[in-house]
């Protein structure tokens, strides 16, 4: 919450005037931060959950996937709780909640699938290589700057905008902002991106995990 406030004070001077008319910066930023927190922390916790519970997994048989998926679900719950302050901010800034609000449920589930899929695949790397976390942190930072979390897409040059549009996270975020308070305008392609990446991610994660887990468990 405090971080959101600082970012809001700083960036509202820089970016607020660049949003299309009718959109407000405070809810725009807050939605971005909620989204980013879910993705970053959910992914790290999910990827780490299996290596950090190694002591249990090598003593009692428990399906290891449970740990990664439950970490993603914990992130999902936080994401939904975050809707309460976001709603307040929406009304303070003079907007109203859109009737499309319930779609947030779908977005949350898609995000949870994305996070648990990537988390499962990464968890194998986390067990095998100690420095994975550092590398993932850097990648997540790059990814955050390539997602319009705290800036409007329109401030970027057309070439950069094209790159940002190819980032699937942008699609999730656009749909999220649109669903909550009509604060963005997603296209059909954003919807396709969201559903296809979430399904692909969970498929990839479970397949990779199943394939490498037998060889990795002894390294716990």
């Amino acid at each position, binding site marked *: 919450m405090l971080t959101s406030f600082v970012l809001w004070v700083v960036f509202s001077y820089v970016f607020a005037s660049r949003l299309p008319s009718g959109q407000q910066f405070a809810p725009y930023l807050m939605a971005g931060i909620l989204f980013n927190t879910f993705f970053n922390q959910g992914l790290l916790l999910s990827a780490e959950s299996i290596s950090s519970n190694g002591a*249990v997994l090598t003593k*009692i*048989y428990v399906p290891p996937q449970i740990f990664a998926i439950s970490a993603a679900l914990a992130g999902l719950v936080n994401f939904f709780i975050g809707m309460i302050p976001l709603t307040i901010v929406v009304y303070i800034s003079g907007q109203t909640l859109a009737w499309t609000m319930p779609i947030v449920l779908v977005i949350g589930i898609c995000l949870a699938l994305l996070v648990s899929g990537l988390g499962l695949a990464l968890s194998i790397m986390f067990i*095998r290589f100690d420095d994975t976390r550092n590398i993932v942190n850097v990648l997540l930072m790059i990814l955050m700057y390539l997602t319009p979390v705290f800036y409007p897409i329109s401030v970027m040059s057309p070439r950069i905008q094209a790159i940002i549009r190819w980032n699937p996270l942008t699609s999730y975020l656009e749909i999220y902002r649109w669903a909550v308070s009509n604060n963005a305008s997603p296209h059909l392609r954003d919807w396709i991106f969201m559903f296809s990446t979430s399904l692909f991610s969970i498929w990839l994660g479970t397949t990779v995990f199943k394939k490498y887990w037998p060889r990795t468990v002894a390294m716990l």
Partner: protein
Amino acid sequence: MAVIEVTNLNLTYRVLMNRTGSIKELFKETIKGRTRITNYVALADVSFTVNKGEVVAILGRNGAGKSTLLKVLAGVLPPTKGASKVNGAIAPMIELGAGFHPEMTGTENVIFYSALLGRDVKRVKARAAEIGEWAGVSDHMGFPLRTFSSGMVARLAFSTATDEQADVLLVDEVLSVGDADFQGKSGARMDSLINSGAAVVLVSHDMVSVRKLAHRAIWLENGQVKMIGPAAAVVDAYEAG
């Protein structure tokens, strides 16, 4: 009836040559074209069966593959080759209190541990107080586990692990839990579990208790079965060699 069937079980660990497994190292080694993984054979061609109500001890020096074998039986480590089949519910007592969390209370830990073992949480909730009482820690069940002494933790874990009838008990050096009084009590409970048909696989360095408890014994050396037979005979041979 065989409760545990192990046929031509092989397990190979992949061991990293250098101490740290990092992506940086992987990158360096790949460029230099060196292999960094060697195979370490922990279990080679192990076959045996365990019948209902039978107590089988696994003997061997440190690093002979005893604990690895227990982990394979528990389903934690997948075998590289061969198969291990366990028919029925397993109560793994490979390390008592694995999955216990120091910040949770005694009762919460009992429920959480039972859930990890795949038991019906509702039934355990009702039995939690009784489990605590049997362990002799009923006064402390509402406090976080970090306030328990290590003996109390071990007693609670034993009480939880043996609370429900299991078909197979996997025991790794946990027979000496608590004080003399509790040892008698836990011994009696083990006996009653065995008498009601549970099979026990037990890893121990304590030859006296092996002679007393086990019907048969398996002597492992460097991952291979060196001798298998009646407990007394195997223990004699093991102590001689």
